[in-house]
């Protein structure tokens, strides 16, 4: 037989005759046909993906596929078969025929492979095993497949218990292997039982079989404990501890296994430790645990992270100390390790035990207490004093000598040195193409391109060869990285001397460039491309001169004069950008320079710098000048001339926020809502830059203003550097503190607050309050750092932050525990920070105590610890009144009372 014959055999569609023909050919001869068989198989399976095929045609191709499958199995080696993947898996009837007729030697390896590619092949493999075609696989996936396929979720015709009862082998052998197999992220006992009905779960079924005496209860109890000792992942280990408890072991049964439970105290899976402690607690209620063994094993539980675990362990220690007075001191010594836990109530429990059972002169206890003394909360420090030797307290962070004092952090960029040589320009352009994160660096490149045309010589094409090549490569990658794509277009414009934005596709006008500010940035880059095409040197009016993109008025005047001399007029948006970047804190010594300027831009510049000048016709210019001249307030001259053009258009923007609640039967959601007055117009001209920050999102995309490209969001902060409130307003609008979806770019909104000259006003504080309560560590971390910095450099008005956080506190929007953790971190930095946190928490307590959120207790506990550490009672009458009016119990009630007691004790 040759390849053609085999092809014809497959096309003929007669399965029986195919088997008959192929078996007659000697194996060595058949092998020669394997390539053809594989090719035919690959071609025939394609029909599976055709949706509009007629039924008769489909049936014909199905038979051809079966014959092609048979041909592959008859001719190919196992490794060739494996390469075809899951598609070559035959159904049982076909597999039976293949194995019966061709009797391949690799059948055991083949079934192993079937299980490897998918545990769901268990049924096929089991049938083959029961028919005697293969050995029972040792493969773990055989057991995983059994768990899945016999589990209730996949079989409607027969229940799990019936399946197990139907086979002695399943019940006596295979069943016990489920305790030795962990499974994986997709398949496991835990996953199976979680996603199937309780009545058909493995746990329920095994309990039933045990209750009916069909399987050994003792063996089940031991097997589940064996499984817990196997280092299975937490989620999967959980099934075995739950199952063990589902068997409801009697105390006697537990006593028999006391050493197994003790052993599990050393497990690295926290819930397994808790499970073992609960079992030991149950034993301890009936009869004494073996004290020495318990002490030998309990340490990992005492040092656990979970509070409930430590508390359970301490309870048993207390009970044993009570009933074994001769070993009470030793037990107290073990309990002393619990001081490492940060919970004040845990530490108190440890100290209670030390005071009651510990011998103060015991060197071992003193050693342990001193080892952990650094962790003790302020309110318990006095109690600890009898155990602590100052010389022994280990509380060090040795920082290497190169370290500097706090506050010596990296200084922000100050004066910007423009690019002055062609080499530097090419090198920096290449740099920003790869690293478009720093908007100032990009501005320097734009300025260099605009000014340094005259440095281009005959070898320019050779010099920019690498840049051209790289830009071309980046453009081929498409606009997914929006800023890189636009910079690459500019690079191509630069090396060719032609505005390539015209020729480039329109991606820079569509997503993700559909955001209002991205469009402004795009126009900014396209203006540079226009300058390139003009072939003339030109100063860039909007090029920043110093930190955060400010422009010195002197420099702006010089540039404008140059432009006038050239007879050039930059687009209005460029003029607006340069006005908004104006640093009006820098006073002009010689105002005569201004007088020599002419034109509407010059008039607007004069107006921005505080001169009385009649307002001209170009609204964008005068609105920008008004924003700089009187930020956040009404500028009567401009407002009268142009009327209401939206927020920050000659009238300030007033922001407000509130929390909206939505509920279903089971859940409640809270949304932060923001608004500003005056409202933004429906259509905002593209050169009204300050108003654009208030664009209402019509776009499908999450943020229609700054977009989701970090480079664009960063550049947005350089548009109006003297007033970032509208920028922070956008940040607060887009932040999702629950991190329901990844929004990595949102962290960028926080970055300007790290600059020591950025004021922390209302919207900055709102963004900070959100950040402190954010789930994503990056957002929470940067907000924490900003608060630490703000307290250090005095920028942060604690009263205002307290007002903002206080407004959010009772709404349910914030997870208060996250605030508590962040504030605790801040308070550890220095006494100054601790004091600020105390003031902050007190300032937040302005709502009706009846509306307090449920997890406020932790925050009040922090306040209490800080007050104790400072040895000062509360001083704020409003918060004292708040605590006095609180009627809630729990932690909130407990620490409210303690704080009030401090006041009383003081008086």
């Amino acid at each position: 037989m040759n390849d053609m014959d085999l092809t014809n055999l497959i096309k003929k569609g007669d399965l029986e005759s195919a088997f008959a023909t192929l078996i007659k050919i000697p194996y060595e001869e058949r092998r020669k046909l394997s390539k053809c068989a594989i090719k035919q198989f690959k071609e025939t399976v394609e029909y599976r993906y055709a949706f509009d095929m007629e039924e008769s045609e489909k049936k014909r191709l199905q038979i051809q596929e079966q014959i092609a499958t048979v041909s592959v199995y008859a001719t190919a080696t196992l490794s060739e078969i494996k390469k075809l993947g899951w598609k070559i898996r035959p159904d049982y009837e076909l597999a039976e025929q293949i194995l019966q007729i061709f009797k391949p030697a690799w059948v055991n390896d083949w079934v192993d492979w079937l299980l490897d590619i998918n545990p769901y092949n268990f049924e096929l493999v089991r049938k083959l095993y029961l028919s005697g075609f293969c050995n029972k696989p040792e493969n773990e996936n055989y057991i995983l497949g059994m768990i899945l396929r016999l589990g209730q979720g996949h079989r409607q015709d027969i229940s799990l218990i019936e399946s197990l009862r139907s086979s002695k082998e399943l019940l006596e052998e295979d069943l016990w292997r489920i305790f030795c197999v962990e499974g994986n992220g997709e398949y496991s006992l835990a996953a199976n039982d979680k996603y199937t009905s309780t009545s058909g779960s493995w746990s329920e079924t095994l309990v039933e079989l045990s209750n009916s005496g069909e399987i050994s209860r003792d063996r089940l109890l031991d097997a589940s404990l064996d499984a817990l000792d196997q280092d299975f992942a937490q989620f999967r280990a959980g099934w075995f501890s739950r199952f063990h408890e589902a068997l409801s072991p009697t105390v006697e049964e537990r006593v028999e296994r006391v050493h197994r439970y003790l052993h599990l105290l050393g497990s690295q899976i926290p819930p397994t430790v808790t499970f073992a402690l609960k079992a030991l607690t149950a034993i301890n209620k009936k009869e004494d645990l073996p004290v020495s063994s318990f002490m030998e094993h309990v340490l990992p539980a005492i040092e656990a992270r979970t509070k409930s675990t430590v508390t359970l362990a301490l309870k048993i220690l207390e009970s044993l100390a009570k009933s074994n007075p001769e070993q009470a001191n030793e037990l107290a010594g073990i309990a002393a390790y619990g001081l490492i836990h940060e919970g004040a109530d845990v530490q108190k429990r440890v100290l209670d035990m030390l005071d009651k059972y510990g011998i103060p002169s015991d060197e071992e206890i003193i050693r342990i207490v001193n080892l952990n003394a650094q962790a003790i909360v302020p309110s318990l420090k006095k109690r600890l004093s009898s155990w602590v030797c100052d010389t022994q307290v280990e509380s060090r962070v040795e920082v290497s000598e190169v370290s500097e004092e706090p506050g010596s952090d990296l200084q922000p960029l100050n004066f910007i040195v423009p690019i002055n040589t062609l080499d530097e320009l090419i090198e920096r352009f290449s740099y920003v193409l790869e690293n478009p994160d720093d908007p100032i660096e990009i501005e320097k490149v734009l300025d260099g391109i605009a000014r340094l045309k005259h440095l281009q010589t005959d070898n320019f094409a050779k010099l920019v060869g690498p840049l051209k090549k790289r830009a071309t490569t980046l453009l081929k990658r498409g606009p997914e990285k929006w800023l890189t794509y636009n910079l690459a277009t500019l690079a191509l414009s630069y090396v060719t001397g032609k505005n390539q934005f015209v020729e480039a596709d329109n991606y820079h006008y569509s997503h993700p460039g559909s955001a209002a500010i991205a469009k402004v940035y795009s126009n900014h880059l396209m203006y540079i491309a226009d300058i390139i095409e003009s072939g003339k040197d030109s100063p860039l009016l909007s090029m920043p001169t110093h930190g955060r993109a400010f422009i010195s008025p002197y420099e702006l005047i010089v540039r404008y004069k140059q432009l006038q001399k050239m007879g050039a007029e930059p687009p209005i948006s460029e003029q607006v950008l340069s006005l908004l970047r104006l640093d009006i804190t820098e006073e002009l010594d010689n105002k005569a320079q201004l007088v020599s300027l002419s034109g509407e831009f010059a008039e607007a510049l004069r107006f921005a710098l505080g001169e009385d000048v009649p307002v001209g016709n170009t609204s964008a210019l005068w609105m920008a000048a008004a924003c700089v001249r009187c930020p956040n307030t009404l500028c009567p001259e401009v407002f009268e001339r142009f009327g209401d053009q939206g927020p920050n258009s000659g009238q300030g923007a007033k922001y407000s926020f509130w929390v909206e609640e939505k509920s279903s039967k089971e859940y409640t959601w809270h949304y932060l809502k923001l608004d500003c007055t005056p409202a933004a117009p429906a259509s905002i001209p593209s050169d009204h830059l300050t108003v654009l920050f208030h664009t209402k999102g019509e776009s499908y995309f999450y943020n229609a203003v700054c977009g989701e490209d970090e480079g664009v969001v960063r550049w947005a902060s350089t548009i109006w550097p003297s007033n970032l409130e509208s920028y922070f307003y956008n940040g607060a609008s887009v932040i999702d503190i629950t991190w329901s979806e990844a929004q990595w770019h949102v962290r960028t909104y926080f970055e300007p607050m790290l600059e020591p000259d950025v004021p922390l006003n209302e919207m900055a504080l709102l963004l900070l309050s959100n950040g402190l309560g954010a789930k994503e560590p990056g957002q929470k971390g940067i907000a924490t750092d900003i608060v630490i910095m703000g307290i250090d450099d005095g920028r942060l008005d604690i009263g205002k932050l307290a007002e903002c956080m206080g407004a959010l506190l009772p709404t349910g929007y914030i997870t208060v525990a996250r605030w508590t953790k962040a504030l605790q971190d801040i308070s550890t930095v220095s006494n100054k920070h601790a004091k600020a946190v105390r003031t902050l928490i007190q300032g937040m307590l302005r709502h009706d105590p009846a509306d307090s959120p449920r997890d406020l207790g932790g925050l009040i506990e922090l306040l209490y610890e800080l007050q104790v550490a400072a040895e000062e009672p509360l001083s704020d009458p409003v918060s004292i009144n708040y605590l006095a009016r609180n009627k809630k119990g729990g932690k909130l009630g407990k620490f409210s009372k303690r704080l009030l007691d401090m006041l009383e004790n003081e008086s």
Partner: protein
Amino acid sequence: MAVNVEHLFRYEQHSALKGQDGKYQLQLASEQKAKGVSAYFEGDLKYPMETARCLRAISILVGSRYYVPPAMLERILREADPVVTASRSMLRFEGFSACCSTYGRLDITEDGFSADKIVPGTTNIDFQAEMRASLSKVRASSKLAMSLRSEEFELIHGNDSVIERKVKLPLRWIKGFSEVQAQQLDMSLMMAVSRVGAIRFFRDLPRGKTRHPAWVVSAGQGIRLSHREVKNGIKVKGLERLRVLEDLVQLSDGLSIYTDKNNTLSAWVLSIGPQRFTLVLSAEPWRGFSGEGKLLNALASTNNTSTLAKVKSSLKWQEAISPDELALQLQESQQDIATALSLCAANGLLGFDVYTGKYFHRVLPFDMSCVEGLSPRLKSARKLVEGGAVTLKTTGDELSAEVSSEDVVHRIRISSEGDQCTCPWYAKHQGDRGPCKHVLAVYIVAEESMNE
């Protein structure tokens, strides 16, 4: 395209933890390398739980992939085995993550074991998941004896008792494993934290993966993470890689943190009685150590052959090799010795202990002959040189050159302030990840012309 080196892990039997009722025998199966050596170590471990947990951590690290490139989702690398080095008074277990971004080592000093037999040598040890699971049974009160041996055997086909695993080790994995050693040389101690401070720090680490870098800074009596750049803060990206230490920190006496001059790599050392666990993190989870390229200049140079030979012949399973002392001993300049030691490390002949600041001799049990040959940047640089692509322009204090490469001409400037090139690699990394192929090519040509 990834280049792989096939390695056959061959053991006579699987490693196993045998015994019960708190008395265990840890039988580590080693590959047989040196003829006649059947046992590297036999003895008792004095801190059973601590050692068992640390070995478990090494095993977890070896099987970890902190970054999975999208194209590799479908073919996850099979894990390699840890490497153990026995010397006269030290046992060292080394592991390297599958993603090549994290290196871990357990050092057991002589106070941590009592040896009946110890033979200097380096070998792979079989370390399967079952072994890892059984190690979690060892408790503080257990007795733990350990043997590290490989009976002499001849491979007989069909012999079921021989365990063979063919693993394709990516070149960057082998290179990273070896190059991470010399890269620790310029690390210095930045912070030493008490046990309590360390426990608090690890408990406060974010649970999920983070994308942005963080800086470890001192805060009051402990340390904390800052999310803004702070001078002298230790920069870390891929915090999830530190999780492997979380289970060990409670056993420790304290934590020491080191970083290099560029603040890109960091080393975390937990002191656990007479044992130390060192974890070295690369700059980012998706960046290995081989990509740092710090050794490329040394590899490209041909001037130190005799020093290298002297250094190689002086290696005798020392536990501590001080570059300064070796320079005195061999009568060579410190610079030449430093370069030669770096090259030896890159060839898998030396490990580096950042805690003591000294190298130690061991021989990585992989085929290291291809390390130099397969360094893609060096290979490309040599190709450029062979193709006559390099034109030196000037000499003197500043060397400039032009390198023709793929239809463009790159300009290179080499000066005391640093090297510069007009290629995208330089533009992206600004020299932080070693020289680009063009700069390397210029170095080779310049050295050749000087030698002439």
